[in-house]
Each structure stands twice: as C-alpha cells, then as structure tokens.
C-alpha cells in the first residue's frame, strides 16, 4: 500500500478509560469483525484480561477504512494497557506509530497515566488526537475533561474529539479525523529493509511470532533476513498481518505493520527492539531500539512441594515466551528450599504471573514478600546488587545501602492535597512541583523510595482520597538510606524467607506488626511456636502461637464415617497449602504478610 494511505496509531489512556472499547468500535465500524463475532473488549483475548477486565498485553490489528473521500486507508492500531506496571508496553507500541489517540474518561478527567502516556507520546514525536470518551455517562463533564486535555497538550479544546466508545457516538467522525490529522509514514520504500520488532508472542505451532513495523524497504516471504542487534540470520518463512486473526499476505512494505515468522522457537533470537534487515542487502544503521524493561520488584517463588522445582522452571520458561519482561534466577532458601528469585514490573505483574503459574501450570507456590533492588556499598569499595533481603551483607561489611527512588506523580482533586501530602511524608517522600490542571485538580510531584510505593501505598492513597487520586511513577536515582534487615525467627530459628529490609526508624514498628500478623496467620500447632523479630542478634518483638489443644469432633455422628472421612480429607487438602518450615506449618499467605500489615 502506498504510504500516503497508511495510518499507524496507538490508543493510550489511563487505566479503564475505554481504550479497548474504542478498539471494538473501530473494528466494528470498519467491518473488520462480523457482527456475530463481536464481543466486548475483543482484543483482550487472554483469560486473565477478560476476568480482570483490564488489558495486560498490547495488541496490534490492521483494519481497512473506506473514507468519505472514496479512498481506502490501511489503519494499524495498537491497543495498549493502562496500568502503570505495563507502561513499557506503551512506549514500545508508540515507537511503531506516527500517531496516538489519547483518551480521557469524561467523568474522571485527566489522571496520572493520562499525563504519563501523553508525555511518552510527545517525546516520541507523535501526533496526538485528544479524545474525551464516555460522554454518555450521567456524571460526564466533557467540557472539563476537554479543558484539562487541552491544558496538558497545549492545544485548544476545539481539537478535542468527543465520543462514546460504548454507544458508538462520534466514531464515524473520529475515523475521518484519524485519516485527516495523523501523519503518513515517511520511510524510504526503496532503501534496504529496516523493520522494528515491537512485540512478540509464542505460538505452539509457529514458534516465535514477531510483530514488526516496516520503516524502510520491504519484506517478502522467503527473504533471508538479519537481526541487526543479535547478528542472527534467519529465513522469513511467513509474513502477514493480524486482523486480528492472522492473515498471510506474503509481503509487507514501508509504513506497514504486520507479523513475521521464522520458525525460530527461541525468543532470545528475535528480541523485541531489534531491527530486521535483509541479510544480502543490510541497512547500515539499525533503528533505535528499546531499553530492556526493568524489574521493579523481586519476589521468591517456591513450589510448596519441593519436587515441583523443575516444573516451575519449565513453566517460567514458557511464560517468558510471551512475556519477555519476566526475569528469574534460581534461588535457594533454607526455609523454602529450591525456587526462583523473580523480577516483576510491579505488584500487578507479580500477581498475574503467580496466578498464571498456578492456574495454567497447576503449580502450588509460596511467594515471599516483594523486595526492591538495593545496592550495598562494601568496605572494600565494591558494590553488590541485593535483590533478596537474605543476600544483604552483614552490617559489619557495609559502608552503606542505597535504594531506588522514583519520580512519583499524583493527580488528585485539590481538596485532598493535604491528605496526600501527609501520606507521602510518612512514606519518606520529598515534595517536588505542583501544577494545577484546572482549579479543581492538581498534579503533585514527589521523589519517593520505591520500597514505600510497592507496599500498600496505592491502596492507602486511594482510600485517603475516596478513590479519586491516581498515581504514576518512573525510576529516578539510587540514594543512600538508613536501612536495616529485620529477621523473623520461628521456634528460635531464623526464617530467611521472612527477612525484610526496612528503614531504621520503622524497624521496631515493622517487627512488632509483622510478628503480630504472623501470630494471626500461623495456625496453632502441636506445640507452642514462639515468633520473634530481630535486628542482628537483638530481639525487637515476640509473640507466641499457643499449642493447639482441641482438634476433634467430640460428637456422635451416627456412623456417618464417609462424611467424617471426607471432611478430614478436605481439611487435609487445606493443609497441603501449608509449607513446612522446620517443624512449623506455615500457610502460604504468611510469606507475603509484610504486604498486609499497617506499618504506621
């Protein structure tokens, strides 16, 4: 297709503002999907996406649009996730486009990821179409939302398109606006091939399917291709587009978005961010790639049944085929045995991965409390990366510990400014800029330790602002901090999986709260179980789970042995979800108890 009739764009927004629903309408109006095949959020095709009602993975589709001017246009749209954990998916998608549809919910207005994603799009030099969605809602205030959008983009409210992705109103106009306002691709069709791998997924039959944006030249099935970063030469065995079902076209030309299959099964051979060129006619410069997504939080994953370690490894390997952001290395815990230290993009990502491992791979797992990545500066001047509290060198060997700080942006109605400031202060936040988006809504900037964010910060923020505040963050620098490791002892034995690094001022309260929480979570056993919190050899808190004294139905049940047996078996199943730590049975949720304690 002639580049003048191609438009490539991403749909970006804060979580739940209606990106996937808008994608539905665009697919529907252009006839890409037959009416009988239509369902809500069609592009959210993973089970977990449908269950949770959120987009987790970006999804690219080609649609054909017959414009009012009589021309047929090729639109390549990418629906992106809104959750902050997956913002790297947004940046990747933007690199494959010339434009972005920036959506704002008319009842919510601009929120933190609206702003964060708008900045990403501006930085990538994209043309942005601002859209106010959900104008059908009774609580909608499209004028206010439009003002806020115009304000952050520096344009006029006249440019803001008003739609309801649900009812379909405004969609016809939007399609025309996409064709009118978005720039056409400007690659050189005659230059040597350069195509950006912006995403990939794994198909059991086809192997790795790379999603690519052709910038220059063209790609035809059978071509011998080269991946410029890895230096790998491969055959392009199949080339086509997704509509969203795969359609083999045999060829992709400059400006187009589509897929490439090489028969390769190893995702490390075709990395996201690499540039595809012709082996025989290689481009001289690769396209700008991506920074690898960075793991933000780390957690130990251990099979409840030690025999499942190899199955866990296989499951992680398989998951990574569709989730290149997943990082893991084998780890051994004295308490939990063999497992993996896994790096995640955030807590939602962690939650999702764990759920998939348990559901899709039928594994029973113990997860340890998430930790951020610390840097330990040692006396000999060397630096050690600490992803797991148990790896922290002893205080005697340390000069200092540094922890990651985040640039945090919070958008809140102005009446909650005080509440937000107070909260951030208790989380060691440092106030930065403050901008008014409108008289009623304000954008607050902070620097804050990531460790404070990953615990219950977001939930607390939401509850202190009646759900109105939104949060976005991105990595800033590492800073030295006064941190100590709090260890937990069960039955006088330190359980490495419970160790946590916390700020010194909070260690005592943390220890007390943790010991208390564990006393609630650990069921009574056949003997007393003392639970202690310690810093080094100093005990800072102690409680005891008293021995269980009654565990029997001292009741006649009229010879109904079957029922009794079944009851005992059910209870036994429940116990299977416990982990033996030494001689103590510990429920799985105890290992993430730290997440659930009120640290104040």
């Amino acid at each position, binding site marked *: 297709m002639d580049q003048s009739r191609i438009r490539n764009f991403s749909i970006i927004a804060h979580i739940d503002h209606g990106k996937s629903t808008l994608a539905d309408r665009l697919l529907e109006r252009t006839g890409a999907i037959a009416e009988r095949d239509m369902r809500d959020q069609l592009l959210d095709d993973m089970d977990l996406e449908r269950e949770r009602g959120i987009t987790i993975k970006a999804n690219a589709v080609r649609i054909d649009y017959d414009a009012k001017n009589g021309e047929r246009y090729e639109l390549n749209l990418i629906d992106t996730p809104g959750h902050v954990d997956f913002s790297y998916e947004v940046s990747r998608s933007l690199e494959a486009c010339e434009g972005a549809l920036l959506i704002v919910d008319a009842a919510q207005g601009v929120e933190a990821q609206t702003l964060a994603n708008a900045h990403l799009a501006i930085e990538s030099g994209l043309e942005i179409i601002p859209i106010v969605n959900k104008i059908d809602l009774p609580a909608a205030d499209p004028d206010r939302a439009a003002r806020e959008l115009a304000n952050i983009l520096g344009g006029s409210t006249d440019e803001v398109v008003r739609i309801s992705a649900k009812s379909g109103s405004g969609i016809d106009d939007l399609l025309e606006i996409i064709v009118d306002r978005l720039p056409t691709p400007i690659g050189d069709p005659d230059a040597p091939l350069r195509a950006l791998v912006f995403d990939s997924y794994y198909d059991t039959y086809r192997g790795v399917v790379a999603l690519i944006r052709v910038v220059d030249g063209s790609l035809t099935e059978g071509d011998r291709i080269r991946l410029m970063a890895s230096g790998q030469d491969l055959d392009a065995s199949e080339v086509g587009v997704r509509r969203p079902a795969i359609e083999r076209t045999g060829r992709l030309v400059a400006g187009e978005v589509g897929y490439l299959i090489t028969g390769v099964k190893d995702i490390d051979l075709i990395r996201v961010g690499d540039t595809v060129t012709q082996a025989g006619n290689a481009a001289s410069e690769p396209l700008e790639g991506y920074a690898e997504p960075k793991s933000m939080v780390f957690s130990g994953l251990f099979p409840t049944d030690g025999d499942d370690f190899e199955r866990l490894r296989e499951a992680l390997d398989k998951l990574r085929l569709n989730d290149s952001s997943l990082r893991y290395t084998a780890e051994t815990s004295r308490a939990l045995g063999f497992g993996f230290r896994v790096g995640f993009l955030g807590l939602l990502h962690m939650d999702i991965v764990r759920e998939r491992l348990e559901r899709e791979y039928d594994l029973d797992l113990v997860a340890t409390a998430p930790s951020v990545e610390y840097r330990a500066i040692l006396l000999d001047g060397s630096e050690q990366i600490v992803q797991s509290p148990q790896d922290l060198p002893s205080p005697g060997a340390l000069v200092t510990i540094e922890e990651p700080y985040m640039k945090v942006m919070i958008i809140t109605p102005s009446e909650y400014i005080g509440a937000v400031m107070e909260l951030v202060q208790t989380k060691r936040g440092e106030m930065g800029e403050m901008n008014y988006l409108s008289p009623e809504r304000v954008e607050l900037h902070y620097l804050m330790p990531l460790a404070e964010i990953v615990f219950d910060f977001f939930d607390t923020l939401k509850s202190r602002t009646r759900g109105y505040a939104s949060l976005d963050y991105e990595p800033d620098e590492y800073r030295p901090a006064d941190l100590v490791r709090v260890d937990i002892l069960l039955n006088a034995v330190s359980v490495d999986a419970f160790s946590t690094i916390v700020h010194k001022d909070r260690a005592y309260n943390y220890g007390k709260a943790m010991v208390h929480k564990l006393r609630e979570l650990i069921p009574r056993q*056949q*003997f007393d179980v003392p639970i202690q919190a310690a810093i080094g050899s100093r005990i800072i808190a102690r409680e005891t789970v*008293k021995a*269980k*004294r*009654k*565990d*029997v*139905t*001292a*009741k*006649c049940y*009229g*010879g*109904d*042995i*079957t029922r*009794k*047996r079944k009851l*005992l*078996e059910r*209870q*036994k199943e429940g*116990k299977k979800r416990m982990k033996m730590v030494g*001689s103590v049975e510990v429920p799985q949720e105890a290992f993430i108890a730290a997440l659930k304690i009120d640290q104040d």
Partner: protein
Amino acid sequence: MRAPVSPDPANGLAPDSAVLADLATEWKSAYVHVPFCRRRCPYCDFAIVDESAGGALDHGQYVEALLSEIAMESRFGPLDAVNFGGGTPSRLAPRYLVAVIEALGERFGMKDGAEMSLEVNPEDWSDEYGAALVAAGFTRISIGAQSFDSIVLEALGRLHDVGLIEAAISGARSVGIRSVGIDLIFGHPGETDESWERTIDRAMDVGVDHISTYSLTVEPGTELSRQVHSGAPAPDDDVQADRYQRFEEVSRDGGFVRYEISNHAKPGHVCRYNLATWAHGEYVAFGIGAHDHRWGLRGRNHRRPDRYLEAIAAGKRPRVGIENLTAPEQERDQLMVGLRLTAGAPLTPTAQRFVSSAAGERLIRAGILEVVEERVRVLKPMLTDTVAREALSVSLNDC
C-alpha cells in the same frame, strides 16, 4: 420378649481393653433412626422431623416404612447389639418399638444377651414407659441430660429441667434397666467452669453406668450458627479442652473408664453398639439419614422423609449413595475410626506405614501417638483429628 441377660465374658473385660475392642470388630449391630423430636434444638443438624413445625410424619406410617426397609435388607447377623438413635426414640410408643425389634429378630436373629438400647429424652420419661421398655427387652438407655445446670439447659434450648433428668435416672433404676447412661454437652458459651464442675459432680452422684460427653459444635445451617454469625459468642476450643480434661480427671476418680473420645463406662457397662462402630464392626441401619456398613460397603439413606417414604413405597432401598471400599481403603477406615478408641487401632500394614511415615514419627515424638502391643493409640484424645488427617494421607498401597 427376651430372656434375662446371661453372663457374658465380654462384660468382665475393662471398657478400654484391647481384647474387648478386638472382639467388637466381629460384632454385628443394627441401628434404627427415629427422627421425631418435639422441636429442633438450636445446635442440632441431625436428620429429624420437628414435630412443632407442623406437617409431622405419622409415627405408624414411619414404623411401617422401617419394617419394609428391614425386610429389604440382605442376610446379616445374628445381632450383638441394636440401637435406636435419633431424633428422639423415646417419642415412639412401646408397641412401635416392639414391632421393630421383632422384625429385626425375625430378619437377622439375636444373639443371647444382645444389647438393646435407645436414647430417651427426660421429658418423655415415665415409669410406665420404662417398664414397657424393659418388657420389650431393652437393656440400656441413654438419657439426653446434657447438663445439670438449668441455665445451661435453657441456653441449649432444651425442654427439660434438672428434676426431670433425676426422675428419669431413678425411674430407670427402679424398673430394672441394666445399664443407665446420660449424655452431656459441654462448652456452651453460657456455661461457666463452676457450672461444668457442678454438672460433673452431679453426674458422678446420680448413679449412672455410662456417660457420653460431647463438645458443643457450631454446625452450618443451625440456629446456633446463625446466632454466632450475627455476633453471639462461639464455643472456645481452649475452654472446651479444659472442660474435657476436667471431666477426665473427675470421672476417672468416680470409677468411669474412657473407652472412646466421648464415651465413659463403669466396668461391664460399655455400650456395645458404640464400641463396635469405632472398632470397625459391621452394622445395618434403617430410617431416614441412616448409614450402614457391611461387606466393605458404606451406604446412606435419604435424609428427607418424603424421599425416604417414596422409595420405600416404590419397593426400593431409600439410598442416596453407596461407597464401595477396597480392602486397603477399609483398613484405612479402620485406622481412622479406631484412633478414637482408648484401646487404639490394630497395627495393620496400613497403620504400620502410617506410624513409620515422617508425619507418624513426628506425632510419636510429640507424645501424641504411641504404638504398644501391636496397637496404635492416640494419647491426647482432643487431638485425634490431627492424627486422623495424617493417617488419611498415608498411601493405600505398599510401594
């Protein structure tokens, strides 16, 4: 009409003796469920017909159905024990009880000196009723006393008072029932340590031969469960453990021997039906919600009276399910139920695998389980389910 009880060697054995428990595995019993209750007690989830709720089932019609069901049972017996449980068996007029006993005798035969027992609620007792029971051949009654504290009786929602209990006990003695027992319920949140102490003392003094002690449990679907969910205090495990222990101490001094978690007898007064159930003996069972166990099959009847009667009317066994147990599964059941006996369960290959498993060894080290003279015994009866759960996870087959 039955001959007076002839001396039985089993009567000379201690209630908790292993020899007696072994004998009991061979006993054959029959259970008859009498579902009628004046009204449902707030903690009770048994299969009963609440006669205060209207739409009551006719006693005669139910007994007819029982007789038909007995006629449908295969060859079994002769019987060592017959037990009428409930519900409230003492709601049935003596002629109905006699009709059932005769049907059982005809169908299965009775051993000499067979035990014939039923549960009696104090408010149903009269000396005439008692005399009729003796005439019908009953050798044992168990009186639903529950407590000797009127406040607790009230809290339990019972219809009788302490006076009625005492009248029933002395009446039963005077009409010559061989073994007289009472049931007690402990651990209601409305019960205090002192109140329980008084109940125990009274139980020791009233001259009974057998005492069953049941801890109050909150069963789903009961009135009690609704109350607890809406904030009423729930029974406390530690309190119940204390009360249990206290009863153990006092009743031992009072000459009672605990032969099962909840059952205590004076020598010669073990409840055979009871012992046989936990010793993995076989029993046939009739009536709504009844469960039987013979030839490796565990069957259960409909709990709903209409379903039960429908099936009987159609000439069918009123079954909701039958479990067919393999030999190893039976051995595992024998271990699971046998752990409730003071004498413990025999050291079968399954039991052997259990005690030598990691879990078994842990329990032995913790002083909860022991192996003596080819038997596996739980030393802390209040932790029996902890042990049984582990026993259930032992593999069924040798590897």
